[in-house]
């Protein structure tokens, strides 16, 4: 039987603020266990939280980039539950007054996936199980998170993947998170149920927790949809439960429950005052947002005239797009710039992470200088690719590698100086010419042609030589 997938995704994203959400400790990843800690983020008795304003700002950025309405009045709640990685036995989060609400992400098909809400909260510590003991590292405790909850608008595994991919792209572009799924700075929980086509009510849903790659999101949705379909086809009912996706077996299985039933006893945190954000601040943040990635893509195609396939390869990595636009700003041409990035620079980068990081040893200006030589047809594109590779390997500018023989044409100045060189190197021939042996000029032509690999304009060279010799 055919079923319709009804799927929503909850995404936790670690914000790239320098300090934690309620104290001054660093948010840096790694570090010796329990070295990025203080009384506040380890929940010592008597300590109190202070809300980091940057966190609020970043969350508003996320909200604006996802077309959300910003709630200018908001507050923090306590979510009470007991777990060893949660030092206060409550997580400071937002319950009924999230910072952002009612946004959307548009898929390539034009379909919009609604964003129900975005709220800010603190991360917990990390449990490390080793030689029969459990250790707790609170370095991550208090790292700021936003939770982005989608509407159950997703109806296929492909849409699920596209939603998460687009979300990742947008968040990276506005610079609020590196969204590294394998490091846990972006984590997705997928809620999924099935229903018969045409049904208006939802089926029983399950939640697949902590999926850590885009591919696994797609695979997990497929696996879970199949599992639920098998149950329904056999006349059974789906049990509402928390599931885990096993990437080894590509299957979904129930997780051991942390608690019998979750009653988080949310209530407003009395330690943190209600806060309001004035409209001016929201507008200021809106104005500070960079061009959003999909606007960029449209501009690359429609305004710059790039083929969509090329534009897609460039726009999706923030640093690549910056490099690309930096080169254009230096006067490099669109087509050569794009092709050299995609063709040559990317051939040095095997993974998505490398492209995201885009650690090139040359500046956009240095790159532009090379591209312009190709634009002006002074070197052909094949030569440019070779030089670019050398620049990437060495970090040195193009002029270090351009040999005269690389030049397609030779400028008047270059030609003139070559002519002077030819005269200096062939005084006998010059004397012969002066003495009426016109053919002796060929010695100098030979010199120039050798130096330029035969690329010099010989008629121009003759004019210059005649003038210099004084004929």
């Amino acid at each position: 039987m055919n079923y319709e997938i009804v799927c929503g995704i909850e995404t936790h994203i670690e914000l790239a603020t320098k300090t934690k959400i309620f104290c001054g400790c660093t948010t840096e990843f790694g570090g010796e266990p329990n070295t990025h800690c203080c009384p506040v983020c380890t929940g010592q008795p008597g300590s109190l939280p202070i809300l980091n304003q940057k966190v609020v700002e970043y969350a508003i950025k996320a909200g604006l980039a996802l077309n959300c309405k910003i709630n200018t009045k908001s507050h923090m709640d306590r979510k009470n539950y007991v777990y060893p990685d949660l030092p206060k036995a409550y997580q400071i989060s937002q319950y009924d007054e999230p910072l952002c609400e009612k946004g959307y992400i548009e898929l390539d098909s034009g379909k919009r996936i609604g964003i129900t809400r975005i709220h800010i909260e603190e991360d917990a510590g990390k449990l490390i199980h080793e030689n029969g003991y459990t250790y707790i590292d609170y370095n991550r405790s208090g790292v700021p998170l936003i939770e982005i909850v989608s509407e159950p608008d997703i109806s296929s595994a492909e849409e699920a993947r596209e939603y998460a991919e687009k979300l990742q792209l947008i968040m990276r572009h506005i610079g609020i998170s590196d969204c590294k799924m394998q490091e846990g700075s972006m984590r997705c929980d997928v809620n999924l149920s099935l229903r018969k086509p045409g049904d208006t009510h939802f089926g029983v849903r399950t939640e697949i927790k902590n999926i850590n790659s885009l591919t696994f999101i797609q695979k997990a949705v497929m696996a879970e949809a199949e599992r639920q379909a098998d149950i329904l086809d056999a006349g059974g009912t789906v049990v509402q439960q928390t599931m885990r996706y096993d990437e080894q077996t590509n299957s979904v299985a129930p997780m051991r429950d942390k608690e019998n039933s979750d009653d988080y006893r949310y209530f407003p945190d009395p330690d943190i005052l209600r806060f309001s954000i004035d409209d001016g601040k929201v507008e200021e943040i809106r104005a500070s947002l960079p061009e959003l990635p999909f606007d960029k893509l449209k501009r690359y195609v429609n305004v710059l005239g790039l083929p969509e396939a090329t534009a897609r390869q460039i726009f999706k990595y923030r640093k690549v797009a910056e490099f690309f636009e930096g080169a254009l700003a230096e006067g490099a041409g669109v087509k050569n710039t794009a092709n050299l990035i995609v063709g040559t620079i990317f051939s040095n980068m095997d993974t998505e992470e490398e492209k995201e990081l885009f650690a090139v040893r040359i500046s956009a200006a240095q790159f532009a200088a090379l591209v312009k030589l190709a634009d002006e047809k002074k070197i052909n594109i094949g030569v440019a690719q070779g030089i670019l590779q050398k620049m990437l390997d060495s970090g040195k500018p193009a002029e270090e590698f351009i040999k005269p023989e690389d030049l397609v044409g030779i400028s008047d100045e270059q030609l003139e100086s070559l002519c002077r060189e030819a005269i200096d190197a062939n005084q006998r021939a010059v004397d012969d010419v002066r003495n009426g042996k016109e053919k002796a000029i060929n010695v100098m032509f030979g010199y120039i042609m050798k130096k330029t690999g035969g690329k010099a304009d010989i008629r121009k060279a003759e004019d210059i030589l005649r003038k210099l010799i004084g004929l």
Partner: protein
Amino acid sequence: MRAGIPELAKRLRNREISAVELTKAYIDVIEKLNPTLNAYVHLTYDTALKAAEQADQMLKDDDAPMLCGIPMALKDNICTDGLPTTCCSKILKGFMPYYDAAVWEKLKKQGAVLLGKTNMDEFAMGSTSETSCYGAPLNPRNTDYVTGGSSGGSAAAVCANLAVYTLGSDTGGSIRQPASFCGVVGLKPTYGAVSRYGLIAYGSSLDQIGPLTNSVKDAAIVFDAIKGGDKRDQTSVDYDYGSSLAECLDRDVKGMRIGVAEEFFDGINPEIKSRIEEAVKLFERNGAVIESIRLPALKLSLPVYYIIACAEASSNLGRYDGIRYGHRTSSYASIDDMIVKTRGEGFGDEVKRRIMLGTYVLSSGYYYAYYKKACLIRDEINREFDAVFEKCDVLIAPTAPNTAFPLNYKSASPVEMYLSDICTVPVNIAGVPAISVPCGEDNKGLPIGMQIIGRRFDEATILQAAHFYEQSAGKVTGAYEGGAGI
């Protein structure tokens, strides 16, 4: 007559006595009396003597702060770096914070000499200090009676002159009620006037630190020293009080509008009622205008208080799981088992009772019926106080409906115990300041306290009124016999 802080400060500056000598004198008395009174639960003589030596150095400078070299004590729920801070709970036995509470940081800088940490109800939950895991402190006025609570040790220490002044904390009356039971002065400042950073939380939206002293003047001096905003406590306010409040105490009460609400006198011991009425008459004779006012929502204060305080407590006390600090059970099968056993062993009955109450009122299905409703009534109580303070400068009420209970008297009936907080809890709910001053004794010779309540951040007026009363009423309670004799 016992010397107040200004007098001691003068003697220290005149070299009549050094801070070290003064500290030693207090240590001697503590050694003599504390085994009986049990006012202190941790003694910090070594650090006290070192601090006293430093204070003597500081005192060579004429500009040394008023509190420099004055021996004092802190309630056991105020964090002290490297010194025990246990909330008188088994679950925090051996706990030594590695940070100072904001108030202690301030006092330390001013050269204060900390003699030790004072006894209290476990996690400040109680009205007699009998829930302390170290046993109850005894009322120095009559050791068959309780000190009141929860800051009972702080009140007893001041009463018996085992410290010049102490700090307590007040969530529902925990400074004022023991002050009243022991016949000392206790000030509960406006919520936000004093940083709560480093005060181990009970009911976070109600908790406030304040002084217990032997006189109103001393209370004003200590309040001056600890007040002020703190960037580590978002709920603190950097209110501009203008000048030092201790220097503006002398003011006559002519024209002062004093509100008296009959709701505060419902079910009050008649002896206490008549003493308060006499005090009100004294104000009236001196030109104050007495206004009879109504506070109808007052009768709802007790349930509102116990719902909000317990809700917050149930969340605040979740962190005591034996993982990072404090008591941990000795044998367990799993992490869950460890947490359950640790908490079962570590918390006393009253704390468990309030955690359960708080958990219940926050749980889904009951949240709106209890917690949310309590918050709405809290708003209404605030509105009533605001309206009253349009017409009055201060309110006068009893501090407690009764004088000190005999030891072990009420421990059996928690609800009856909760009822004895009726006069103090409305003040915490509204976040306004109030002071308790001695205003006589009952027929058993036990002190009676009068409460003067003011507008938010108007500590000045309640201190002035209290000071006026203290100066005009003369000797209202018998002095404690014994103590440091200083």
